[in-house]
């Protein structure tokens, strides 16, 4: 009797065990950390605009995120710390490609943050595409990068040509309110690298939309040391607005030579020179005062301002010394939000989650656009992080536009 009962008992036990194991899979063991790889222009020509301070800010962000417990991953029902692996690409696109290859194959990075500057991102993003690893671009915003139909890349910044649209919106408001006279003509310098060329193209494109005439457009080689021929030509043309789409060192050469030869347009707009206060100190107040440009920094009121500010505080530097901290912040935040939304570290699912993200961040709602037309180019994965128009006033950078964030009023040069 007992023997007869034992057999069904064990059979039932086996069935229960089998059903148990087949119905409820135990989650894989969670990884120790989420590895996020990136290359950065810590040395080399682009380090002038990013460099060691950007590394410092990234590391500060990492430490604050981890002190808060890391990122919640539903798949493991736990929070995981992040580990940033950042290498110096020496500002070389080819070196950056090698480093992302290493990050994918040797370091086994789970995700990528893009390198700084469009000329480097345009090449490095091919590795993300090759290995199917999500890459979040930080500062690279040339439309060429996003017009290639890449599936594993998004960039947080608004496309470079749109910087011009923002600037002319401010000029129009100043003219409408009679703060400045009616300006009619624009002359544009375009430094021949991805990004600066796109900023220049935007300067031309949106000038025409704003009803301004582009009287001269000069393409220059990278790092041109002599602007004499352009200045002599423009002295004859007398443009109201001079728009210099170049890196800050090249812009310093132009502004200095224009000053030395008595060329003073009504307004001088050089987007990159208000990214930090360094340019003002370098060229001196008689040249820098009143020059307008763009900034990524403003008095942010929405989003996780506390995380953004705490990381800045830890670096011991000011926001304008850190090589565009809002973009570094945003690229990491987008990735972490994507992981949380996907609830997994599965790369495809995280990428899908990132593409459809909508959340409140420093500048307002963050989202990505697909099939977005920019100056005749269909772009996929471009973000909506805006730039703010600023002016160098008394050695400080004052945000002028949009009006709701303005810290000062436009001053004539």
């Amino acid at each position, binding site marked *: 009797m007992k023997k007869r009962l034992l057999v069904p008992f064990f059979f039932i036990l086996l069935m229960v065990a089998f059903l148990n194991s087949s119905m409820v899979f135990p989650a894989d063991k969670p990884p120790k950390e989420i590895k996020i790889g990136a290359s950065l222009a*810590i*040395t*080399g*020509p682009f*380090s*002038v*605009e990013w*460099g*060691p*301070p950007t590394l410092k800010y990234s590391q500060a962000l990492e430490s604050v995120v981890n002190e808060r417990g890391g990122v919640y991953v539903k798949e493991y029902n736990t929070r995981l710390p992040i580990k940033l692996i950042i290498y110096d690409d*020496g*500002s070389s696109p080819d070196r950056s490609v090698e480093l992302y290859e290493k990050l994918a194959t040797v370091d086994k990075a789970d995700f990528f943050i893009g390198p700084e500057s469009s000329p480097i991102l345009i090449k490095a993003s091919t590795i993300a595409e090759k290995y199917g690893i999500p890459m979040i671009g930080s500062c690279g915003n040339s439309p060429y990068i996003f017009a290639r139909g890449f599936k594993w890349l998004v960039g947080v910044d608004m496309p470079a040509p749109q910087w011009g649209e923002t600037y002319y919106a401010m000029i129009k408001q100043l003219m409408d309110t009679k703060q400045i006279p009616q300006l009619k003509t624009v002359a544009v310098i375009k430094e*021949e690298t991805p990004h600066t060329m796109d900023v220049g193209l935007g300067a031309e494109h949106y000038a025409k939309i704003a009803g301004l005439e582009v009287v001269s457009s*000069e*393409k*220059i*080689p990278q*790092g*041109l*040391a*002599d*602007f*004499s*021929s*352009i200045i*002599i*030509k423009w002295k*004859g043309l007398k443009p109201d607005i001079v728009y210099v789409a170049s890196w*800050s*060192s090249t812009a*310093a*050469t132009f502004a*200095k*030579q224009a*000053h*030395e*030869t*008595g*060329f003073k347009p009504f307004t001088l707009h050089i987007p990159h020179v208000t990214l*930090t206060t*360094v*340019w003002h*100190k*370098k*060229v*001196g107040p*008689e*040249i820098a005062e009143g020059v307008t440009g763009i900034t990524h920094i403003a008095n942010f009121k929405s989003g996780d301002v506390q995380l953004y500010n705490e990381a800045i505080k830890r670096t011991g*530097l000011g926001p304008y*010394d*850190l*090589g565009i901290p809002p973009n570094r912040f945003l690229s990491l935040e987008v990735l972490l939000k994507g992981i949380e939304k996907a609830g997994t570290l599965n790369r495809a699912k995280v990428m899908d989650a990132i593409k459809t993200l909508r959340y409140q961040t420093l500048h307002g709602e963050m989202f990505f656009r697909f099939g977005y037309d920019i100056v005749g180019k269909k772009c996929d994965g471009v973000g909506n992080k805006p730039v703010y128009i600023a002016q160098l006033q008394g050695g400080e950078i004052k945000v002028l536009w949009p009006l709701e964030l303005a810290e000062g009023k436009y001053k004539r040069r």
Partner: protein
Amino acid sequence: MRVFFQLFIAGLSLGGIYALLSFSFSLIISTTKILNIAHGVIFVWGAGITAILWLHLRLHPLITFPILFLFFVGFSLLFFNGIVRVLIRKGEHYLLSGSILATFGLAFAMESSLGAGWANFIDPQPTFLLPVNLAPIELWGMAISSNRLMVLFFAGLMIMGFHLFLKKTFFGKGARAMAQNFGGFLIIGLNPYWVSMLIVVLATLATALSGILYILVVPIDAYGGLPITLKALTIIILAGVGSLPGILAAGGLLGLVEVIGSYFFGAIWAHVISFAILFLVLLFRPTGLFGKVTI
């Protein structure tokens, strides 16, 4: 007419900058046969260290210049004993190729250490510029840059000084003799190491001083040295190795052609124009416009 005069002045002043970039480079090549690829980086170091002492530590120029002098004399002695002397010992045939390889490495090491060191410890943006903005000189309704005229003047002064040193002084004549006939030079009893060392020290000091003058007119970043070496090499090939006054003339010619060419065809063509001229000179006059020897 006024435009052409402005272009002429602009071209000449650009030529002055080009002469400034290249004359000390030419001095070392013609006397020691060392092709110092790190020339442009030493030039940038001159600018960078001046910026540290003058702008960041706010030292008086009377203190800044002796420190610079001592620093670059020390550097040039290290350079001479660590690279030049080693190469001379290996034999004359090894000088050119050996110096290219050794100074290439030196250039990268110096460039990165200045860039990263500067950005980490001094200023997040390693760009050097002296904020000396002199008022332009007004002439017939045209504004001419005083900074550039000053650079042109000092470049001319330094070049003529070195030219006279090589032509008139005992050591200068010795350096020329060493370059022309090393065997004959040894017979007259001069020590080649001492002569080479003197030339290397003087040329290094002149390079550093040129870097200081350069950042009066053009900002430069810590990584701008190698393009400067390339530009200097273009001027030397154009002028001809060993001709210091030729450097001034070739610099002026190249400056004029670039400025006038840029005015009519666009600045994007400036490099194309200068390298096209270089190509033509190499094709039809390989010794350069004013030179007698090839490197």
